[in-house]
Protein backbone atom coordinates (compact mmCIF):
# COMPACT_ATOMS: atom_id res chain seq x y z
CA UNK A 1 0.00 0.00 0.00
CA UNK A 2 2.35 2.64 1.23
CA UNK A 3 4.84 1.12 -1.07
CA UNK A 4 2.72 1.43 -4.18
CA UNK A 5 1.55 4.90 -3.28
CA UNK A 6 5.12 5.96 -2.85
CA UNK A 7 6.09 4.66 -6.23
CA UNK A 8 3.12 6.38 -7.69
CA UNK A 9 4.10 9.65 -6.17
CA UNK A 10 7.65 9.38 -7.35
CA UNK A 11 6.55 8.62 -10.84
CA UNK A 12 4.16 11.48 -11.00
CA UNK A 13 6.61 13.94 -9.57
CA UNK A 14 9.96 13.06 -11.01
CA UNK A 15 11.48 16.46 -10.46
CA UNK A 16 10.37 16.61 -6.87
CA UNK A 17 11.60 13.11 -6.34
CA UNK A 18 14.97 14.19 -7.60
CA UNK A 19 15.02 16.97 -5.08
CA UNK A 20 14.85 14.34 -2.34
CA UNK A 21 18.27 13.28 -3.33
CA UNK A 22 20.18 10.06 -3.50
CA UNK A 23 20.68 7.87 -0.47
CA UNK A 24 23.81 5.89 -1.28
CA UNK A 25 22.93 3.17 1.23
CA UNK A 26 19.56 2.62 -0.38
CA UNK A 27 21.28 2.71 -3.74
CA UNK A 28 23.82 0.11 -2.64
CA UNK A 29 21.11 -2.22 -1.39
CA UNK A 30 19.03 -1.91 -4.53
CA UNK A 31 22.02 -2.46 -6.80
CA UNK A 32 22.74 -5.56 -4.75
CA UNK A 33 19.12 -6.68 -4.75
CA UNK A 34 19.02 -6.41 -8.51
CA UNK A 35 22.02 -8.70 -8.74
CA UNK A 36 20.35 -11.09 -6.29
CA UNK A 37 17.10 -11.28 -8.22
CA UNK A 38 18.87 -11.83 -11.54
CA UNK A 39 20.84 -14.53 -9.75
CA UNK A 40 17.52 -16.17 -8.87
CA UNK A 41 16.69 -16.75 -12.52
CA UNK A 42 20.16 -17.46 -13.88
CA UNK A 43 21.57 -19.64 -12.58
CA UNK A 44 19.12 -20.25 -9.70
CA UNK A 45 15.85 -21.18 -11.33
CA UNK A 46 17.60 -22.57 -14.39
CA UNK A 47 19.43 -25.11 -12.22
CA UNK A 48 16.40 -25.82 -10.06
CA UNK A 49 14.36 -26.67 -13.14
CA UNK A 50 17.25 -28.15 -15.11
CA UNK A 51 17.93 -30.79 -12.50
CA UNK A 52 14.28 -31.85 -12.42
CA UNK A 53 13.96 -32.84 -16.06
CA UNK A 54 15.45 -35.88 -17.74
CA UNK A 55 19.02 -35.52 -18.86
CA UNK A 56 18.07 -35.38 -22.52
CA UNK A 57 16.18 -32.14 -21.83
CA UNK A 58 18.51 -30.53 -19.32
CA UNK A 59 20.02 -28.00 -21.68
CA UNK A 60 16.69 -27.08 -23.20
CA UNK A 61 15.48 -25.85 -19.85
CA UNK A 62 18.66 -23.88 -19.21
CA UNK A 63 18.41 -22.47 -22.71
CA UNK A 64 14.81 -21.41 -22.17
CA UNK A 65 15.53 -19.66 -18.89
CA UNK A 66 18.58 -17.97 -20.32
CA UNK A 67 16.97 -16.84 -23.54
CA UNK A 68 13.89 -15.53 -21.79
CA UNK A 69 16.19 -13.51 -19.56
CA UNK A 70 17.65 -11.83 -22.61
CA UNK A 71 14.41 -11.36 -24.47
CA UNK A 72 12.48 -10.00 -21.52
CA UNK A 73 15.28 -7.57 -20.74
CA UNK A 74 15.08 -5.97 -24.15
CA UNK A 75 11.28 -5.94 -24.15
CA UNK A 76 11.37 -4.20 -20.81
CA UNK A 77 13.74 -1.56 -22.11
CA UNK A 78 11.82 -1.03 -25.33
CA UNK A 79 8.37 -0.56 -23.90
CA UNK A 80 7.68 -2.79 -20.92
CA UNK A 81 8.89 -0.41 -18.25
CA UNK A 82 7.00 2.51 -19.77
CA UNK A 83 3.79 0.54 -20.04
CA UNK A 84 4.08 -0.83 -16.53
CA UNK A 85 5.28 2.21 -14.63
CA UNK A 86 4.69 5.14 -16.97
CA UNK A 87 1.63 7.33 -16.90
CA UNK A 88 -1.04 6.01 -19.23
CA UNK A 89 -3.06 9.21 -19.14
CA UNK A 90 -6.76 8.52 -19.53
CA UNK A 91 -6.05 4.77 -19.55
CA UNK A 92 -3.85 4.91 -16.51
CA UNK A 93 -6.15 2.71 -14.46
CA UNK A 94 -5.34 -0.13 -16.80
CA UNK A 95 -2.05 0.52 -18.52
CA UNK A 96 0.84 2.96 -18.44
CA UNK A 97 2.70 4.38 -21.42
CA UNK A 98 5.60 6.37 -22.75
CA UNK A 99 9.28 6.00 -21.99
CA UNK A 100 10.03 4.03 -25.14
CA UNK A 101 13.65 2.87 -25.06
CA UNK A 102 13.77 4.48 -21.59
CA UNK A 103 13.88 7.87 -23.27
CA UNK A 104 12.95 9.65 -20.06
CA UNK A 105 15.20 7.66 -17.79
CA UNK A 106 18.16 9.98 -17.78
CA UNK A 107 21.31 9.44 -15.80
CA UNK A 108 20.07 11.96 -13.24
CA UNK A 109 16.51 10.69 -12.93
CA UNK A 110 15.58 9.51 -9.47
CA UNK A 111 12.97 7.16 -8.14
CA UNK A 112 12.66 8.03 -4.49
CA UNK A 113 16.08 7.85 -2.93
CA UNK A 114 17.57 5.63 -5.62
CA UNK A 115 18.50 6.32 -9.23
CA UNK A 116 15.67 5.54 -11.60
CA UNK A 117 18.05 3.39 -13.66
CA UNK A 118 18.33 1.12 -10.65
CA UNK A 119 14.58 1.01 -10.21
CA UNK A 120 14.23 0.07 -13.88
CA UNK A 121 16.77 -2.72 -13.45
CA UNK A 122 15.29 -3.98 -10.20
CA UNK A 123 11.82 -4.21 -11.70
CA UNK A 124 13.26 -5.77 -14.84
CA UNK A 125 14.52 -8.71 -12.84
CA UNK A 126 10.95 -9.35 -11.68
CA UNK A 127 9.73 -9.24 -15.24
CA UNK A 128 12.51 -11.71 -16.15
CA UNK A 129 11.74 -14.36 -13.61
CA UNK A 130 8.02 -14.55 -14.29
CA UNK A 131 8.09 -16.05 -17.80
CA UNK A 132 11.06 -18.17 -16.71
CA UNK A 133 8.88 -19.68 -13.98
CA UNK A 134 6.28 -20.63 -16.57
CA UNK A 135 8.86 -22.81 -18.33
CA UNK A 136 8.20 -25.44 -15.69
CA UNK A 137 4.66 -25.90 -16.96
CA UNK A 138 5.51 -26.87 -20.52
CA UNK A 139 8.99 -28.31 -20.00
CA UNK A 140 10.21 -31.27 -22.05
CA UNK A 141 7.81 -30.84 -24.95
CA UNK A 142 7.33 -27.28 -26.23
CA UNK A 143 9.05 -25.93 -29.32
CA UNK A 144 11.74 -23.39 -28.64
CA UNK A 145 10.41 -20.99 -31.26
CA UNK A 146 6.94 -21.26 -29.76
CA UNK A 147 8.30 -20.45 -26.33
CA UNK A 148 9.82 -17.25 -27.63
CA UNK A 149 6.69 -16.11 -29.40
CA UNK A 150 4.51 -17.07 -26.46
CA UNK A 151 6.67 -15.27 -23.94
CA UNK A 152 6.92 -12.02 -25.90
CA UNK A 153 3.18 -11.79 -26.32
CA UNK A 154 2.54 -12.85 -22.74
CA UNK A 155 4.89 -10.18 -21.39
CA UNK A 156 2.86 -7.39 -22.97
CA UNK A 157 -0.58 -8.90 -22.61
CA UNK A 158 -0.32 -10.31 -19.10
CA UNK A 159 2.71 -9.30 -17.08
CA UNK A 160 2.90 -5.65 -17.99
CA UNK A 161 -0.77 -4.80 -17.44
CA UNK A 162 -1.04 -6.70 -14.15
CA UNK A 163 2.17 -5.07 -13.00
CA UNK A 164 0.68 -1.68 -13.82
CA UNK A 165 -2.55 -2.45 -11.99
CA UNK A 166 -0.73 -3.48 -8.84
CA UNK A 167 2.48 -1.46 -8.70
CA UNK A 168 2.24 1.14 -11.45
CA UNK A 169 -0.70 3.11 -10.10
CA UNK A 170 -3.46 1.12 -11.80
CA UNK A 171 -6.84 0.15 -10.47
CA UNK A 172 -5.77 -2.57 -8.05
CA UNK A 173 -3.26 -0.29 -6.42
CA UNK A 174 -5.94 2.37 -6.08
CA UNK A 175 -8.23 -0.19 -4.58
CA UNK A 176 -5.62 -0.83 -1.91
CA UNK A 177 -4.40 -4.29 -2.88
CA UNK A 178 -1.53 -5.48 -0.72
CA UNK A 179 1.16 -7.16 -2.77
CA UNK A 180 4.53 -6.33 -1.38
CA UNK A 181 6.77 -8.21 -3.78
CA UNK A 182 4.73 -10.05 -6.31
CA UNK A 183 2.14 -12.55 -5.07
CA UNK A 184 -0.20 -11.58 -7.86
CA UNK A 185 2.16 -10.01 -10.38
CA UNK A 186 4.74 -12.77 -10.31
CA UNK A 187 3.48 -15.94 -8.68
CA UNK A 188 -0.21 -16.17 -9.51
CA UNK A 189 0.55 -14.99 -13.02
CA UNK A 190 3.26 -17.59 -13.52
CA UNK A 191 1.28 -20.40 -11.93
CA UNK A 192 -1.89 -19.81 -13.88
CA UNK A 193 -0.05 -19.41 -17.17
CA UNK A 194 1.89 -22.61 -16.54
CA UNK A 195 -1.13 -24.78 -15.90
CA UNK A 196 -3.07 -23.34 -18.80
CA UNK A 197 -0.12 -24.04 -21.07
CA UNK A 198 0.24 -27.53 -19.65
CA UNK A 199 -3.38 -28.35 -20.38
CA UNK A 200 -3.36 -26.86 -23.85
CA UNK A 201 -0.11 -28.61 -24.82
CA UNK A 202 -1.12 -31.93 -23.33
CA UNK A 203 0.84 -34.43 -21.34
CA UNK A 204 4.38 -35.50 -21.98
CA UNK A 205 4.65 -38.82 -23.76
CA UNK A 206 4.55 -41.48 -21.09
CA UNK A 207 2.96 -39.36 -18.37
CA UNK A 208 1.90 -40.50 -15.85
CA UNK A 209 2.66 -44.25 -16.40
CA UNK A 210 6.42 -44.00 -16.87
CA UNK A 211 8.38 -42.49 -14.07
CA UNK A 212 10.33 -39.39 -15.10
CA UNK A 213 12.74 -38.97 -12.25
CA UNK A 214 14.86 -35.82 -11.95
CA UNK A 215 18.15 -36.39 -13.72
CA UNK A 216 20.29 -34.50 -11.23
CA UNK A 217 18.94 -33.61 -7.82
CA UNK A 218 22.24 -32.10 -6.71
CA UNK A 219 21.64 -29.50 -9.40
CA UNK A 220 18.11 -28.93 -8.18
CA UNK A 221 19.24 -28.43 -4.59
CA UNK A 222 21.91 -26.02 -5.78
CA UNK A 223 19.33 -24.01 -7.66
CA UNK A 224 16.93 -24.09 -4.75
CA UNK A 225 19.57 -22.75 -2.41
CA UNK A 226 20.31 -19.94 -4.81
CA UNK A 227 16.63 -19.12 -4.95
CA UNK A 228 16.51 -18.82 -1.19
CA UNK A 229 19.50 -16.48 -1.06
CA UNK A 230 18.31 -14.46 -4.03
CA UNK A 231 14.85 -14.10 -2.56
CA UNK A 232 16.32 -11.74 0.03
CA UNK A 233 16.81 -9.33 -2.85
CA UNK A 234 13.33 -10.03 -4.12
CA UNK A 235 11.48 -9.31 -0.90
CA UNK A 236 13.80 -7.17 1.20
CA UNK A 237 14.76 -5.27 -1.95
CA UNK A 238 11.12 -4.44 -2.49
CA UNK A 239 11.34 -2.06 0.44
CA UNK A 240 13.33 0.05 -2.03
CA UNK A 241 15.60 1.09 0.82
CA UNK A 242 18.09 -0.41 3.25
CA UNK A 243 15.89 0.37 6.21
CA UNK A 244 13.87 -1.31 8.93
CA UNK A 245 11.20 -2.43 6.50
CA UNK A 246 13.84 -4.22 4.50
CA UNK A 247 15.16 -5.89 7.61
CA UNK A 248 11.77 -7.14 8.70
CA UNK A 249 10.97 -8.31 5.17
CA UNK A 250 14.18 -10.33 5.13
CA UNK A 251 13.40 -11.88 8.48
CA UNK A 252 9.83 -12.74 7.49
CA UNK A 253 11.00 -14.21 4.21
CA UNK A 254 13.55 -16.39 5.89
CA UNK A 255 11.19 -17.67 8.55
CA UNK A 256 8.55 -18.57 6.01
CA UNK A 257 11.08 -20.43 3.85
CA UNK A 258 12.26 -22.48 6.80
CA UNK A 259 8.72 -23.18 7.99
CA UNK A 260 7.48 -24.16 4.53
CA UNK A 261 10.40 -26.54 4.11
CA UNK A 262 9.86 -28.27 7.41
CA UNK A 263 6.11 -28.47 6.97
CA UNK A 264 6.50 -30.25 3.63
CA UNK A 265 9.18 -32.51 5.08
CA UNK A 266 6.98 -33.41 8.02
CA UNK A 267 4.04 -34.41 5.82
CA UNK A 268 6.24 -36.53 3.60
CA UNK A 269 7.83 -38.19 6.57
CA UNK A 270 4.47 -39.02 8.06
CA UNK A 271 2.83 -40.13 4.85
CA UNK A 272 5.70 -41.96 3.14
CA UNK A 273 7.94 -42.88 5.98
CA UNK A 274 10.90 -40.92 4.68
CA UNK A 275 11.64 -37.27 4.01
CA UNK A 276 13.19 -36.38 0.67
CA UNK A 277 15.43 -33.56 -0.41
CA UNK A 278 13.19 -32.77 -3.35
CA UNK A 279 10.35 -32.50 -0.89
CA UNK A 280 12.08 -30.11 1.42
CA UNK A 281 13.25 -27.77 -1.33
CA UNK A 282 9.79 -27.76 -2.84
CA UNK A 283 8.43 -26.76 0.53
CA UNK A 284 11.00 -23.98 0.60
CA UNK A 285 9.82 -22.59 -2.72
CA UNK A 286 6.25 -22.79 -1.47
CA UNK A 287 7.18 -20.92 1.69
CA UNK A 288 9.00 -18.24 -0.26
CA UNK A 289 6.35 -17.78 -2.91
CA UNK A 290 3.63 -17.55 -0.31
CA UNK A 291 5.33 -15.00 1.92
CA UNK A 292 6.18 -12.79 -1.03
CA UNK A 293 3.02 -10.65 -1.16
CA UNK A 294 2.97 -10.34 2.64
CA UNK A 295 6.68 -10.01 3.35
CA UNK A 296 6.67 -6.28 3.97
CA UNK A 297 3.62 -6.25 6.18
CA UNK A 298 3.95 -9.05 8.69
CA UNK A 299 6.04 -9.93 11.73
CA UNK A 300 7.88 -13.12 12.69
CA UNK A 301 4.78 -14.89 14.00
CA UNK A 302 2.80 -14.10 10.88
CA UNK A 303 5.67 -15.31 8.75
CA UNK A 304 5.81 -18.58 10.65
CA UNK A 305 2.11 -19.21 10.18
CA UNK A 306 2.25 -18.32 6.51
CA UNK A 307 5.20 -20.65 5.96
CA UNK A 308 3.54 -23.59 7.64
CA UNK A 309 0.32 -23.01 5.72
CA UNK A 310 2.32 -22.83 2.50
CA UNK A 311 4.04 -26.16 3.06
CA UNK A 312 0.79 -27.96 3.82
CA UNK A 313 -1.48 -26.41 1.22
CA UNK A 314 1.03 -26.60 -1.62
CA UNK A 315 1.82 -30.21 -0.78
CA UNK A 316 -1.78 -31.26 -1.10
CA UNK A 317 -2.30 -29.11 -4.18
CA UNK A 318 0.59 -30.84 -5.89
CA UNK A 319 -0.88 -34.24 -5.11
CA UNK A 320 -4.27 -33.17 -6.30
CA UNK A 321 -3.25 -31.62 -9.60
CA UNK A 322 -0.75 -34.29 -10.49
CA UNK A 323 -2.27 -37.44 -9.09
CA UNK A 324 -5.99 -36.79 -9.12
CA UNK A 325 -6.46 -34.41 -12.02
CA UNK A 326 -3.48 -35.93 -13.86
CA UNK A 327 -2.55 -32.60 -15.34
CA UNK A 328 1.04 -32.62 -16.53
CA UNK A 329 2.22 -29.26 -15.25
CA UNK A 330 5.69 -30.77 -15.57
CA UNK A 331 7.46 -29.11 -12.68
CA UNK A 332 4.38 -28.26 -10.60
CA UNK A 333 4.40 -24.53 -11.18
CA UNK A 334 0.74 -23.99 -10.44
CA UNK A 335 0.42 -25.96 -7.20
CA UNK A 336 3.56 -24.34 -5.82
CA UNK A 337 3.69 -20.81 -7.22
CA UNK A 338 0.08 -20.28 -8.22
CA UNK A 339 -1.47 -21.72 -5.10
CA UNK A 340 1.25 -20.16 -2.97
CA UNK A 341 0.63 -16.76 -4.52
CA UNK A 342 -3.11 -17.01 -3.92
CA UNK A 343 -2.66 -18.18 -0.35
CA UNK A 344 -0.11 -15.51 0.45
CA UNK A 345 -2.08 -12.69 -1.06
CA UNK A 346 -5.06 -13.67 1.05
CA UNK A 347 -3.10 -14.29 4.24
CA UNK A 348 -1.43 -10.89 3.89
CA UNK A 349 -4.78 -9.39 4.80
CA UNK A 350 -4.82 -11.41 8.00
CA UNK A 351 -1.29 -11.12 9.27
CA UNK A 352 -0.88 -7.44 8.51
CA UNK A 353 -3.06 -6.99 11.58
CA UNK A 354 -1.23 -5.22 14.39
CA UNK A 355 -2.53 -7.79 16.86
CA UNK A 356 -0.76 -10.48 14.88
CA UNK A 357 2.48 -8.53 14.70
CA UNK A 358 1.96 -6.81 11.36
CA UNK A 359 2.14 -3.15 10.39
CA UNK A 360 -1.60 -2.66 10.66
CA UNK A 361 -4.33 -1.70 8.26
CA UNK A 362 -4.67 1.61 6.50
CA UNK A 363 -7.10 4.02 8.00
CA UNK A 364 -10.66 2.97 7.42
CA UNK A 365 -9.73 -0.58 6.50
CA UNK A 366 -10.28 -3.67 8.62
CA UNK A 367 -9.50 -7.32 8.07
CA UNK A 368 -12.69 -8.14 6.26
CA UNK A 369 -12.43 -5.16 3.98
CA UNK A 370 -8.82 -5.95 3.24
CA UNK A 371 -9.67 -9.60 2.62
CA UNK A 372 -12.25 -8.63 0.06
CA UNK A 373 -9.77 -6.36 -1.68
CA UNK A 374 -7.25 -9.16 -1.76
CA UNK A 375 -9.83 -11.53 -3.19
CA UNK A 376 -10.62 -9.08 -5.94
CA UNK A 377 -6.92 -8.85 -6.75
CA UNK A 378 -6.49 -12.60 -6.79
CA UNK A 379 -9.53 -13.23 -8.94
CA UNK A 380 -8.74 -10.45 -11.35
CA UNK A 381 -5.25 -11.82 -11.85
CA UNK A 382 -6.41 -15.40 -12.28
CA UNK A 383 -9.08 -14.51 -14.77
CA UNK A 384 -7.08 -12.03 -16.79
CA UNK A 385 -4.06 -14.26 -16.88
CA UNK A 386 -6.05 -17.40 -17.66
CA UNK A 387 -7.95 -15.90 -20.54
CA UNK A 388 -5.06 -13.98 -22.04
CA UNK A 389 -2.73 -16.97 -21.77
CA UNK A 390 -5.22 -19.05 -23.71
CA UNK A 391 -5.40 -16.41 -26.41
CA UNK A 392 -1.64 -16.08 -26.55
CA UNK A 393 -1.29 -19.85 -26.90
CA UNK A 394 -3.81 -19.82 -29.75
CA UNK A 395 -1.86 -17.15 -31.56
CA UNK A 396 1.39 -18.95 -30.97
CA UNK A 397 0.02 -22.22 -32.25
CA UNK A 398 -1.06 -20.57 -35.46
CA UNK A 399 2.36 -18.97 -35.91
CA UNK A 400 4.78 -21.74 -34.99
CA UNK A 401 2.87 -24.70 -33.60
CA UNK A 402 3.31 -25.57 -29.95
CA UNK A 403 4.77 -29.04 -29.50
CA UNK A 404 7.76 -30.75 -30.99
CA UNK A 405 7.12 -33.97 -32.88
CA UNK A 406 6.87 -37.19 -30.94
CA UNK A 407 10.18 -38.35 -32.35
CA UNK A 408 11.90 -35.20 -31.18
CA UNK A 409 10.32 -35.50 -27.78
CA UNK A 410 11.65 -39.04 -27.53
CA UNK A 411 15.16 -38.16 -28.51
CA UNK A 412 15.07 -35.13 -26.24
CA UNK A 413 14.93 -31.39 -26.82
CA UNK A 414 18.66 -30.87 -26.31
CA UNK A 415 19.52 -32.68 -29.48
CA UNK A 416 16.40 -32.03 -31.45
CA UNK A 417 16.05 -28.31 -30.75
CA UNK A 418 19.63 -27.26 -30.02
CA UNK A 419 21.99 -29.83 -31.53
CA UNK A 420 23.77 -30.19 -28.21
CA UNK A 421 24.03 -32.63 -25.37
CA UNK A 422 24.36 -31.71 -21.74
CA UNK A 423 26.98 -34.24 -20.80
CA UNK A 424 29.88 -35.89 -22.61
CA UNK A 425 31.52 -37.65 -19.73
Amino acid at each position, binding site marked *: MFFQRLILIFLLLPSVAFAEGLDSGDGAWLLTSTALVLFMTIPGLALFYGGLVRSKNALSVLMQCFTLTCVTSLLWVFAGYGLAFGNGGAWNDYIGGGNVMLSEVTREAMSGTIPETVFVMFQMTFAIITPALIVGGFAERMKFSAILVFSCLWMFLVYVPVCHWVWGGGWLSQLGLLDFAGGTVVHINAGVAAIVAAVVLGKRKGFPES*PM*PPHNLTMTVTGASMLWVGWFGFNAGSALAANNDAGMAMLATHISAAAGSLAWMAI*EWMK*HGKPSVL*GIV*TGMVAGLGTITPASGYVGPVGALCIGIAAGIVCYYS*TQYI*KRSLRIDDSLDVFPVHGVGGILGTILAAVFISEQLGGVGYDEGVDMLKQLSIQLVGVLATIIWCGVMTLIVLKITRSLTGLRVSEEKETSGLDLSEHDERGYNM
Partner: protein
Amino acid sequence: MKLITAVIKPFKLDDVRDALSTAGIQGMTVTEVKGFGRQKGHTELYRGAEYVVDFLPKVKLEIAVDDDAVDTTVEIVKEAANSDSIGDGKIFISDLNEVIRIRTGETGKDAL
Protein backbone atom coordinates in the same frame (compact mmCIF):
# COMPACT_ATOMS: atom_id res chain seq x y z
CA MET B 1 39.50 -71.61 -23.64
CA LYS B 2 36.41 -70.44 -21.88
CA LEU B 3 34.83 -67.16 -21.10
CA ILE B 4 33.46 -66.90 -17.60
CA THR B 5 30.93 -64.15 -17.18
CA ALA B 6 29.72 -63.30 -13.70
CA VAL B 7 27.03 -60.82 -12.75
CA ILE B 8 27.50 -59.85 -9.11
CA LYS B 9 26.63 -57.19 -6.56
CA PRO B 10 28.81 -54.10 -6.90
CA PHE B 11 30.03 -54.06 -3.33
CA LYS B 12 31.42 -57.59 -3.82
CA LEU B 13 33.70 -56.55 -6.66
CA ASP B 14 36.73 -55.89 -4.50
CA ASP B 15 36.39 -59.19 -2.68
CA VAL B 16 36.10 -61.18 -5.88
CA ARG B 17 39.02 -59.45 -7.49
CA ASP B 18 41.22 -59.99 -4.46
CA ALA B 19 40.30 -63.65 -4.30
CA LEU B 20 41.05 -64.14 -7.97
CA SER B 21 44.37 -62.39 -7.90
CA THR B 22 45.40 -64.43 -4.90
CA ALA B 23 44.75 -67.45 -7.10
CA GLY B 24 46.91 -65.95 -9.83
CA ILE B 25 44.13 -64.71 -12.09
CA GLN B 26 44.87 -61.11 -12.84
CA GLY B 27 43.10 -60.28 -16.03
CA MET B 28 39.48 -59.38 -16.28
CA THR B 29 37.13 -56.84 -17.79
CA VAL B 30 34.42 -55.22 -15.73
CA THR B 31 31.23 -53.51 -16.87
CA GLU B 32 28.59 -51.65 -14.92
CA VAL B 33 25.21 -53.12 -15.75
CA LYS B 34 21.66 -53.08 -14.56
CA GLY B 35 20.13 -56.33 -13.47
CA PHE B 36 16.56 -57.60 -13.53
CA GLY B 37 15.70 -60.77 -11.72
CA ARG B 38 13.96 -62.01 -8.62
CA GLN B 39 15.58 -59.53 -6.30
CA LYS B 40 13.19 -56.68 -5.57
CA GLY B 41 14.06 -53.12 -6.52
CA HIS B 42 13.49 -50.11 -4.34
CA THR B 43 10.96 -47.35 -4.09
CA GLU B 44 11.80 -43.78 -4.98
CA LEU B 45 9.82 -40.72 -4.06
CA TYR B 46 9.44 -37.55 -6.10
CA ARG B 47 7.17 -34.82 -4.82
CA GLY B 48 4.93 -37.31 -3.18
CA ALA B 49 4.83 -39.70 -6.12
CA GLU B 50 6.24 -43.06 -5.20
CA TYR B 51 7.44 -45.41 -7.86
CA VAL B 52 9.30 -48.64 -7.95
CA VAL B 53 12.67 -48.88 -9.59
CA ASP B 54 13.04 -52.50 -10.52
CA PHE B 55 16.48 -52.59 -12.02
CA LEU B 56 19.42 -53.00 -9.72
CA PRO B 57 22.98 -51.88 -10.19
CA LYS B 58 25.24 -54.90 -10.78
CA VAL B 59 28.69 -55.41 -12.18
CA LYS B 60 29.54 -57.88 -14.86
CA LEU B 61 32.96 -59.57 -14.84
CA GLU B 62 34.34 -61.19 -17.94
CA ILE B 63 37.27 -63.49 -17.40
CA ALA B 64 38.86 -65.46 -20.17
CA VAL B 65 40.60 -68.56 -18.81
CA ASP B 66 42.27 -71.67 -20.06
CA ASP B 67 40.10 -74.79 -19.85
CA ASP B 68 42.05 -76.10 -16.85
CA ALA B 69 41.33 -73.03 -14.83
CA VAL B 70 37.58 -72.94 -15.34
CA ASP B 71 36.59 -74.88 -12.27
CA THR B 72 38.81 -73.05 -9.82
CA THR B 73 37.79 -69.70 -11.21
CA VAL B 74 34.12 -70.49 -10.93
CA GLU B 75 34.65 -71.77 -7.43
CA ILE B 76 36.47 -68.64 -6.35
CA VAL B 77 33.88 -66.31 -7.79
CA LYS B 78 31.06 -68.29 -6.31
CA GLU B 79 32.55 -68.10 -2.89
CA ALA B 80 33.70 -64.52 -2.90
CA ALA B 81 30.52 -63.12 -4.42
CA ASN B 82 28.19 -64.97 -2.10
CA SER B 83 26.39 -62.92 0.51
CA ASP B 84 23.61 -65.44 0.99
CA SER B 85 20.93 -63.17 -0.24
CA ILE B 86 18.75 -62.99 -3.30
CA GLY B 87 20.38 -61.16 -6.15
CA ASP B 88 23.89 -62.37 -5.51
CA GLY B 89 23.97 -63.11 -9.21
CA LYS B 90 24.97 -65.71 -11.71
CA ILE B 91 27.93 -67.15 -13.50
CA PHE B 92 27.78 -68.01 -17.20
CA ILE B 93 30.32 -70.19 -19.02
CA SER B 94 30.80 -70.25 -22.76
CA ASP B 95 33.40 -71.27 -25.32
CA LEU B 96 36.08 -69.05 -26.69
CA ASN B 97 37.62 -70.04 -30.02
CA GLU B 98 40.61 -67.85 -29.77
CA VAL B 99 42.26 -65.10 -27.77
CA ILE B 100 44.84 -62.71 -29.19
CA ARG B 101 47.04 -60.22 -27.36
CA ILE B 102 47.02 -57.07 -29.46
CA ARG B 103 50.48 -55.80 -28.58
CA THR B 104 52.38 -58.98 -29.37
CA GLY B 105 50.02 -60.97 -31.53
CA GLU B 106 50.36 -63.95 -29.15
CA THR B 107 47.37 -66.28 -29.24
CA GLY B 108 45.71 -68.90 -27.09
CA LYS B 109 46.89 -69.54 -23.57
CA ASP B 110 49.86 -67.23 -24.01
CA ALA B 111 47.59 -64.32 -24.68
CA LEU B 112 45.81 -64.52 -21.36
